[in-house]
């Protein structure tokens, strides 16, 4: 399309070009004839519009009063009920809505019905004039000249140095976003501590679970022993370690090679964190043995080691190997054998490290 420095509009379509060829010059149709409004001709209509605007402003006043009355007159003391709070909330909302809406609609109605409505056309000014361009160049030249930056290399160089160094504090600040999580995501609280296997305990009260408590068809929501006693990072640890414990007929489980000992008499434990984006997968259907994730409907089949049978998740839920200790309580024999939850950049590397 050539050089646009003359300020011609930037045509990019062939349609516009074709139009230019056919029509020599577009005829300006001008502004349509001005049509008078009812309020312009009829004084009674004008009076009526005036009253309407005043009424809208009046509604705004009433709205503000409702707000003030609701705020100050309704007592939210210690003996107030939810119903009182709900009443106050409703009145505050209604009051504010009418206070704002009254002013807004009043002004618009005023402008539309009563203020002058003559159509005005304004010519667009030329986009670029050579004189202005020259003037701008002169201003820049003047600035360079007056700063004397060319004559004073010391100032120029120190300025360059200062500007170059100034972003360094940002590096320090971004550094505080760390430290890198390293392999924190790959390990959970289930790892045995000092050779002592962690017991499976109930969420939320943390009481240990006996294998005999878990009857067929049961589902237990499980947290590791000692989680409730953590004073720091409790939620982070819980988010990685939550487990769903279920018992089904041992005949319907089909453990793969090497995982035969990970369950106990049909009791199996799987991570509750979806491998898609980490929602808690806890919708357990005890007859179909399906686990459903409520966020994106990923469905896992418990009888096939939580293989994904529907939905966007790409990996089975990690299984927690469990056994029974001397007192009959369920314990985790080790941590998960892969990182729980959704994929992340270093996941494959972490999985290799766990299993090596």
């Amino acid at each position, binding site marked *: 399309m050539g050089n646009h420095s003359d300020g011609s509009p930037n045509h990019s379509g062939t349609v516009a070009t074709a139009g230019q060829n056919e029509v020599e010059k577009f005829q300006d149709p001008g502004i349509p004839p001005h049509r008078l409004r009812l*309020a312009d001709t009829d004084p009674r209509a004008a009076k009526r519009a005036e009253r309407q605007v005043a009424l809208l402003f009046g509604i705004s006043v009433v709205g503000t009063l409702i707000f003030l009355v609701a705020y100050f007159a309704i007592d939210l003391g210690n003996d107030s009920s939810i119903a009182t709070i709900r009443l106050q909330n409703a009145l505050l909302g209604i009051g504010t809505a009418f206070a704002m809406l009254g002013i807004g609609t009043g002004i618009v109605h005023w402008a539309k019905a009563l203020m002058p409505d003559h159509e005005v056309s304004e010519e667009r000014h030329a986009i670029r004039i050579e004189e202005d361009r020259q003037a701008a160049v002169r201003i820049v030249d003047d600035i360079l000249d007056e700063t004397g930056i060319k004559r004073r290399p010391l100032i120029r160089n120190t300025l360059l140095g200062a500007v170059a160094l100034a972003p360094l504090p940002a590096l320090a600040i971004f550094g505080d976003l760390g430290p890198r999580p390293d392999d924190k995501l790959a390990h959970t609280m289930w790892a045995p501590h000092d050779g002592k296997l962690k017991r499976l305990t109930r969420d939320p009260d943390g009481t240990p679970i006996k294998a005999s408590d878990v009857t067929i068809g049961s589902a237990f929501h499980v947290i590791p022993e000692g989680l409730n006693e953590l004073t720091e990072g409790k939620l982070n640890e819980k988010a990685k370690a939550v487990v769903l414990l279920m018992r089904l007929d041992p005949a319907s489980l089909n453990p793969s090679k090497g995982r035969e000992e990970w369950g106990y008499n049909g009791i199996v434990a799987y991570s509750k964190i979806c491998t898609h984006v980490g929602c808690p997968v806890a919708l357990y259907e005890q007859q179909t043995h399906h686990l459903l994730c409520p966020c994106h409907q990923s469905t896992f089949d418990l009888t096939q080691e939580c293989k994904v049978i529907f939905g966007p998740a790409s990996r089975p839920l990690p299984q927690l190997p469990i056994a029974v200790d001397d007192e009959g309580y369920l314990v985790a024999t080790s941590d998960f054998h892969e990182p729980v939850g959704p994929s992340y950049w270093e996941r494959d590397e972490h999985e290799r490290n766990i299993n090596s």
Partner: protein
Amino acid sequence: MKALSQKRRHPLAAIALLLMGLLITGGLYAVATTMNTAKASTTTASASDVEEGGKLFAANCATCHGMGASGSKDAPSLVGVGAAAVDFQVGTGRMPMQMNGPQAMKKPVQFNEQQTSQLAAYVASLGAGPAIPADDLTNGGGDAAAGGELFRTNCAMCHNAAAAGGALTQGKFAPALADVTGKHIYEAMVTGPQNMPVFNDANITPEGKKDIITFLKQIESSGSPGGADLGSLGPVAEGLFVWVAGLGVIIAFTIWLTSRTS
């Protein structure tokens, strides 16, 4: 009384006294243990109840569940499901089932209370299972805050945080819990009807179940403090409302703003 005091020195008096003592303790013990184990199977199932229940069962249930409730390829065996399962399934109208589908639906009940308890007595007589809970566990009066915590951990993922129900796979769903009696909620927890997992007393204690029922009744009666809850269904219902009503109002205002006054 005079005769009694005269005979108290009789050589056989000690033996008679011993026998009497044993009988009283034994009797009291028997009463106490039955009260404990089957905490009032409401109308303490009599032999006639079992018999009547057996007849009702043969007439209404045996087609699918088999004679003697031993199960068939269409329906599971009911031996050992307990009275609570029958009271829940029949008491909410889910059984007898009208047709096959993803799950048995709640519908008007087909048996009156007496017939339901007779059926329950019959099924309970086939094998030990959870009994119908006592009234003091199902009438509320527990700790609503503790119940809320248990509910959010164990129930909310399927039944929704506000107990408004939710979808499962392939047409199955977890029903809303408003207007369900405390007794039926309790029975559902102990028996795990259909695809619901079982929450036995070792998992959630009877006291915990009582708290959950208290919580559910509490949120049902106190309503939503934030105004209309739009079914408590979360972002779908709220988003739809904003798209239809909110955008509708905005469009109406823009049309009014740009329209010409007459």
